[in-house]
């Protein structure tokens, strides 16, 4: 599962959605692998305005990545900074969580990631 995907996922428990503590989910005991994905600068420029940057900063630091700038870079900044572009490409699209858990900061429920696939089916008592 990509780091980018985590920016668009939250707890599946209905009561958690109104709580700010449920987003982003917190990776726990995660194994990371790196996929090689063809560079696609246009995709990165275009999706960045739709990424929750504060949540991405949290995720990146929890996964042990170097601290991201406090603001999302603009298209112009990225065009001028190949290194930053490459780092974002690696972080958002190439880095995969292959195994581990994603924990909700509100209810504490942990969702399993197995062979790169996150499972959000809830046990009966949480439905």
């Amino acid at each position: 599962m990509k780091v980018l995907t985590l920016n668009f996922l939250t707890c599946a428990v209905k009561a958690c959605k109104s709580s700010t503590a449920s987003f982003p989910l917190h990776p726990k005991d995660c194994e990371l692998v790196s996929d090689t994905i063809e560079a696609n600068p246009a995709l990165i420029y275009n999706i960045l305005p739709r990424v929750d940057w504060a949540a991405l900063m949290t995720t990146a630091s929890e996964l042990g990545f170097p601290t991201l700038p406090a603001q999302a870079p603009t298209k112009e900044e990225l065009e001028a900074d190949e290194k930053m572009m490459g780092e974002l490409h690696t972080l958002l699209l190439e880095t995969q969580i292959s195994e581990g858990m994603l924990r909700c900061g509100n209810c504490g429920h942990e969702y399993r990631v197995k062979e790169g696939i996150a499972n959000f089916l809830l046990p009966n008592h949480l439905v």
Partner: protein
Amino acid sequence: MNANPVVGTEEAESYEEQHVHEVYEQIASHFSSTRYKPWPIVSSFLSSLRPGSIGLDVGCGNGKYLAVNRDVFIVGSDRSSNLVKIASQSQNQPHAAVVADSLALPHQKDRFDFAISIAVVHHLSTRERRREAVGAVLECLRDGGRALVYVWALEQKGSRRGWDEGGEQDVMVPWVMKSSKKDVGEAGETEKTFQRFYHLYRKGELEEDVVEVGGEVVESGYEKDNWWAICRRPLKE
């Protein structure tokens, strides 16, 4: 065949577990090998999106719609982990897929530019649950975001199944899976039939459900044995 003796929520869940989820889990790879051609309405909806749009494919199955537009980012989800494994394969880059229930989606409200729900809500066994599923998709949309919902129609005059206006809407539809028996050393093929539950929508029913859960129908129509509706949440004044 008539179907659906469902009364309460728990019964609905276990009924769908048996007559929908289990079946897809079992037939996943065979089903997937027959599902590769996107329907035109769905393709044109996805192709019309602005580059960089973020969306959902609720009930993404084998991910056949993930590859249509690579300039947007889609998080697909499905109940069947076997189908999600297929959907997550690299030909569907840059998109993603997770295992989730359409009535308990792991997504924020008010966040997404678009969503599609293709041949999914007709597998829910009560009207209340079908409406809830449409509502769950609408809830994820930001202001101005749009969702395309696509369901099987009762009115299928041209189809070999013989369904049409006035007929039974809750039906079981067989899926015949052929597999070769070479592993066991027997000759020829073996056939196994799975029964899947479907609710066939009559004309106007999908639009009624959209409105009932607070949505607005932007455009709707009929395409080859299916009803579809593009909907959104009402714009705030």
